[in-house]
């Protein structure tokens, strides 16, 4: 198990460095001179030169690259062009809010999807299954920002059951905070649970066809014991791996959902950075989101290895 984890951590480091490289290269996408792009046509040559120095693009590209990787490794992601604040500091202020949303929605989607997926598989090709599979298909197809906007409209604006978007932190008022986090979590979880439900259903269907399940039934176990004791553990493995694959969708969805509900996470930083052409901020946030995706994937892989000894051996 030790070597398995060590190997996964090694690939994590490589992936993070590569992600850093892509983020570095993104600045090269800017057509023309990025410094001129930020400052606009009216800026003087001196100002542009100063901005080029600020962005570090006045030096040869290999030097810039070495610098970028070295400072990123020390968690230094530069300073914002607009506010002059440290990018990593701004990210640090918000990252826990984003993580809270992500973790809660993963938990909620597992709670929703695993039992429902199991039921759909047990009732395969009957009315319950068709209903659940159709719901999952709808959940998969309706984008998060549509679900979120509609939920906000119904619960916060029409019925006024849940408050609308004035952020209260957990330490100030736990109850208001919980009320506030319900809608964004639900929005993210609905789409995610649709994917998990479909995976759970097909994985369960694979497993119940196995011989040992027939043996378990033949020796007279109740259907509940067969499902819980014999099939669920084997069926859950592919579901764990789909949670990893979905991490990237979830973090993408998070950006939009945070924006809808005014959640003070990474998204507001990213979007305001994009709109004001604050390139260091955009690069910093994109890198952190990529790193989060990679880390979640590795954690899921390790969990997968813990659950299934066969994976560790490969």
């Amino acid at each position: 198990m030790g070597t398995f984890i060590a190997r996964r951590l090694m690939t994590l480091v490589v992936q993070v460095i590569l992600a850093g490289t892509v983020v570095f290269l993104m600045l090269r996408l800017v057509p023309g001179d990025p410094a001129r792009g930020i400052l606009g046509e009216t800026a003087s040559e001196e100002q542009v030169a100063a901005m080029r120095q600020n962005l570090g693009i006045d030096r040869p590209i290999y030097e810039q690259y070495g610098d970028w990787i070295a400072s990123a490794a020390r968690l230094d992601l530069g300073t914002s062009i607009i506010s002059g604040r440290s990018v990593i500091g701004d990210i640090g202020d918000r990252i826990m809010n984003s993580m809270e949303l992500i973790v809660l929605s993963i938990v909620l989607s597992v709670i929703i999807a695993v039992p429902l997926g199991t039921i759909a598989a047990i009732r395969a090709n009957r009315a319950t299954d068709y209903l659940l599979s159709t719901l999952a298909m709808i959940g998969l197809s309706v984008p998060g920002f549509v679900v979120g906007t509609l939920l906000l409209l119904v619960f916060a604006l029409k019925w006024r059951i849940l408050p609308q978007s004035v952020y209260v932190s957990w330490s100030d008022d736990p109850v208001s905070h919980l009320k506030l986090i319900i809608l964004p979590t639900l929005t993210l979880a609905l789409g995610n649970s649709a994917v998990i439900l479909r995976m759970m259903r097909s994985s369960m269907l694979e497993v119940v066809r196995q011989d040992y399940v027939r043996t378990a039934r033949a020796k007279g176990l109740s259907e509940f014991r067969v499902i819980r004791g014999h099939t669920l553990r084997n069926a859950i493995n592919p579901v764990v791996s789909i949670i990893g694959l979905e991490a990237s969708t979830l973090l993408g969805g998070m950006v939009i959902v945070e924006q809808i509900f005014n959640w003070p996470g990474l998204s507001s930083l990213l979007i305001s950075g994009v709109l004001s052409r604050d390139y260091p901020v955009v690069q910093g946030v994109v890198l952190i989101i990529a790193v989060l995706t990679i880390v979640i994937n590795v954690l899921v892989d390790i969990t997968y290895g813990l659950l299934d000894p066969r994976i560790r051996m490969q």
Partner: protein
Amino acid sequence: MDTATATTGANQTAAGSRDASSLARRETTRFRRLLTFAGRSPRIWIPVTFLILVGAVSIGAPWIVPYDPTQLLDAPLLPPSSTYWLGTDDFGRDMMSRLIYAGRVSLGVSFSAVTLAAIAGVLLGLSAGYFRGAVDFAIMRTTDLFLSFPTIVLAIAMVAFLGNSIRNLILVIAVVYIPRFVRVVYGSTLTIANAEFVEAARVVGARDFYIMRTAVLPNVAAPIFVQFSLSLGFAILVESGLSFLGLGAQPPTPSWGNMISAARPFVDQPQLLLAPSAMIAFTILALNTLGDGLRDALDPRLHGSR
């Protein structure tokens, strides 16, 4: 079935390259049969009918719309009426006309982007799976790298750096979807490229490009269609998501995404929000259902099981 054709191929190595093209023809007829099969499945013809309808209305938008979608016609926020079927928006523009034109933008951008992504992805995936070695390594590692970024975040970042315009939007969505096609084509190519009939074509001296086109491509076509349908759904999602965030199609150009975003403050006129939401939801639902249906129809293992 593969073994049978491979044996035929081995017996006629002299006519190897001609054999590859006759095999391709046979694959095409097999594909037609599958399409006939698909035509009987409601999970395929219902979404196809819907998509053709939406597509036709979008293409014919200039001749269909009752009013100019960007012209300020009447009082703002009028309720639906016989003059304005979906009422007017906050600028007094006809919602129905905007909805139709928005479909033109959203579908146009997504379709162009996914077509570009499919072409690039198929070429890259075929090359990686067929040539192996350094080509494989370079293409597949780059693909993995792109896949470690959330699609929408990658798209947002690229829009930030490239600047936003309809052309860049198409380019960005194309780039973020190339890896999916590469993956799908690569996987299928790996299994086909080692088949005996491909070997036979190579032995008689057929050129690589010819073999890829006539022997490999027809055999990997099915998953490409499935992927096209699914990716188109996701591309609409990304396009409307970006426009919703204000990073895609810019007002006054309507797009389903920016219409939803614009309608948010007007709680008392829910049709402003519901109409574009429903269009996005049903279009993506149709594409996903079609993708699923196609996958089942094209997967011989599932035949007869349903």
